[in-house]
């Protein structure tokens, strides 16, 4: 099998203690513990090729971090199979570690009280990175991430953005084959985000690094990941090209038509009869908004129908950018329709 990462029926259930409030509840739990099971990841199938960049997205609590932990061998799957570089991560943690690297945006793997360069050197030793390779990696990362002034500083004295730059360097110092980034750009300014993306992009292009990234920042996805896997409540609801996302989910197009003069009567009632139109409304006296199913109707037929009702002075068509689609999917405004558009 040529895939670097495969998951088949990957499932993770967590046990949560049921504790009634108060001391009595705590005591009761001690004597007779009760648990509920929560499924964080449900039957996920993935296959990622070497050198691919995959964005793993979904609303808060969807199970993204849990999946990353399963792929790193941190958690043991409740069911299903994982394989990373031909190893089952949780069965071969030490060997798997040499192939992968992971960055958790809200954690640091650097030693808190010693200078950054010492942490990097220690990681180099831990992974037995040959001196020339270490030097080459360090030089490249210092260059792209502008780390030179940070190297002699203990991690506890760094700002969040400075620390994340160092953390990314730490993750890449041993030239891993697979990099997992769990919300790497959380809380970073635009310039730092750009630097991180530049380095990661470069490693993917030049070294064939395989990347799996979770993020709530569409910029990360747009710039790094042609492929997107979307998760909702632990299930994969979309796995395909990022650029295809709107075609798949944003089957509803919005048209905003304005008239120069106040609208007479109820043009929206007539417009609502056009085949494919799903709803209409009148936010003010001169404007009409129309939503239609773009799998059924075209923009042209709907606009023609509106023109029959009144003279349009201004027209806006909102197809829904991918970012907008993601936002609307998360908020439940769009449905995770399983059918392909007609």
């Amino acid at each position, binding site marked *: 099998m040529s895939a670097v990462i495969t998951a088949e029926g990957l499932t993770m259930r967590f046990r949560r203690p049921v504790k009634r409030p108060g001391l009595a509840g705590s005591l009761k739990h001690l004597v007779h513990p009760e648990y509920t099971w929560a499924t964080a990841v449900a039957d996920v199938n993935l296959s990622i090729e070497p050198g691919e960049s995959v964005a793993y997205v979904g609303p808060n609590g969807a199970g993204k971090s849990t999946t990353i932990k399963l792929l790193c061998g941190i958690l043991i799957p409740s069911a299903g199979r994982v394989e990373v570089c031909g190893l089952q991560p949780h069965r071969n943690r030490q060997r798997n570690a040499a192939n*992968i690297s992971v960055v958790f945006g809200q954690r640091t793997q650097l030693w808190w009280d010693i200078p950054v360069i010492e942490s990097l050197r220690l990681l180099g030793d831990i992974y037995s990175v040959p001196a020339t390779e270490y030097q080459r990696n360090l030089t490249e990362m210092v260059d792209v991430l502008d780390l030179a002034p940070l190297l002699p500083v203990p991690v506890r004295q760094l700002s969040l953005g400075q620390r994340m730059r160092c953390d990314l360097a730490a993750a890449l110092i041993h030239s891993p084959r697979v990099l997992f980034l769990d919300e790497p750009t959380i809380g970073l300014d635009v310039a730092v985000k750009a630097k991180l993306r530049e380095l990661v992009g470069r490693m993917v292009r030049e070294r064939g690094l395989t990347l799996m990234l979770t993020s709530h920042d569409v910029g990360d996805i747009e710039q790094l990941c042609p492929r997107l896997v979307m998760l909702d409540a632990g299930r994969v609801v979309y796995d395909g090209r990022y650029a295809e996302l709107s075609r798949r989910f944003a089957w509803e197009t919005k048209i905003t038509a304005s008239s120069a003069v106040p609208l007479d009567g109820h043009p929206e009632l007539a417009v609502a009869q056009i085949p494919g139109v799903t709803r209409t409304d009148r936010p003010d006296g001169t404007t009409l908004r129309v939503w239609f199913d773009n799998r059924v109707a075209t923009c042209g037929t709907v606009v023609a129908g509106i023109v029959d009702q009144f003279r349009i002075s201004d027209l806006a068509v909102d197809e829904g950018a991918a970012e907008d689609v993601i936002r609307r999917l998360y908020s439940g405004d769009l449905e995770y329709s399983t059918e392909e558009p007609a």
Partner: protein
Amino acid sequence: MTTTTPSAGQRTRPWPRYLSIAQVSLQDAVAYRVSTIIGIGVAFLWVLILYFLWRAAYARAPLTAGYTWPEMRTYVVLAFGINALVGWRVGSLMMATVRTGDVVFDYVRPLNYCFAQLFRACGYCLVEGLVSLAMCLLVGFAFLHIAAPASPADALLFAVSLLLGVLTKALFVFLVSLLAFWTLSGLGLMWAQQAVIQVFSGTIVPLALMPDWLRTLAAILPLRGIVATPLTLYLGKADPPTALGLLALQAGWVAALLLLANVAWRRAFDVAEIQGG
């Protein structure tokens, strides 16, 4: 402020990984030298209290359970210094990473977790442990009239035993701290382990002074290897066959603990519920 030159670049090959871990933890310990020294100073008060209590006791009876006053004062002062060779630092760091979930990084390193923690303990031992031992020896020889090893042969046995003792304690602290993977909160564990070690290692009183049932228990448990066994050898209170027997017991326990630790951490990694997203 620690100043370091990025010297790593000039290396021609990477260091052995565990050695490098020990070296970094040594650096870490140096970064905290002030708090370390204060901690040692405060703890040293205990030595003085024990010392004067025993002196008062010996003023009435010149021989207690086979220990003369010169032997006892040597025991009391050195017991503290030896027990301080391995501290709680590694244990509390381990527990903290489990509580916060930062332990995830230990899952994704090509390291034997047990060995990594032991070498880390070595780094701290070299700074914190040796400072407190040096302080004991200094104050002990200068003011408290402690004795030198009974003979050069005893000194040698003592050195071997001391090394095994350091390993015993580091392994014990490791094993107790591993419980945090199950319990999550570690503070209670820490206090409990401290009390258990102080009693069963013979830091507070030599085994010979314990009531029968406690002495029998302490004599076979591994913890005596931390303080009581090295000091028995230092004071020359064991004839050669007994001395070798004691060392064999120590070595046997170290091997057993090492084995247990290596089974236990893998188990702990599998059961842990990793905290935090």
